[in-house]
């Protein structure tokens, strides 16, 4: 009990809020539920990354050329590992 009669009066007759509308809780909880990200949020970055990867792959395949030393090394390896006959296979 508060010694001030005004405070007692206020607490006794304080205006009470009307009850919330039935759908308010659902409205709030729906709004706070994590929503799936719309396609236009994730598709452009994903497309950009895929395009860049492809471009890098193609570009590196085109740009890479073996040096003469590497060519000689590859030829030597083929010679050493060639187990077939010297003749070419007959044409069918």
């Amino acid at each position: 009990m508060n010694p001030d009669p005004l405070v007692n009066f206020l607490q006794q007759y304080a205006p009470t809020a009307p009850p919330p509308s039935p759908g308010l809780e659902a409205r709030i909880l729906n709004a706070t539920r994590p929503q799936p990200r719309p396609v236009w949020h994730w598709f452009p970055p994903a497309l950009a990354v895929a395009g860049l990867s492809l471009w890098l792959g193609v570009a590196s395949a085109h740009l890479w050329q073996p040096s003469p030393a590497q060519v000689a090394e590859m030829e030597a390896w083929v010679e050493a590992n060639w187990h077939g006959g010297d003749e070419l296979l007959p044409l069918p």
Partner: protein
Amino acid sequence: MVPAACVNPIPTQAETPLHPDLALVQRCQQGDPEGFRWLYRRFQPRVRGTLYRLCGAVALDDLTQEVFMRVWRGLPRLRQLDIFNTWLYRITLNVATDYRRQCAQKRTQMETLTQTSPDRVPAPDLMHLHYEELVRQGLETLSFEHRTVLVLHDLESLPQKEISEILRIPVGTVKSRLFHARAALRRHLEQQGVTL
């Protein structure tokens, strides 16, 4: 059929040393989907009561929703759980202040609307209803600053120190506003024939 998770929404003391309210806040921060529902149910009456006493009934549902949306967005950044109550009241007052600012811009429309209180709780008797209306009118005569302090202190029973933290003003200013608010309200009630 109530799911088992809903029966005991608040962790027991054995699970966490935190106050149950703060444990609930922590659950929300950890992304517990049911946590926010219980947080809403726990704090909605307090938020709603404060908003009603500060802004009336017209936009009460929308204002309540706005408070809880701000709480939802702000929760991940809330580091000190023990100030949750102060933080919640601060958000509530910010929403109320924003609303009153909007109302001031279109005052003529709002004055018409605030005269109608659509969903009043039925009062037990006419005298109670009359006094409640007098208090409501009295609160409306106060400035927003005075009204805020009076509502938080005398109706929400918050200590002056917490009010000073919520409003970010010195305790002395809280005391001064409370004194003037009470005096103005006492005058108003006495003019209406209430003997205190």
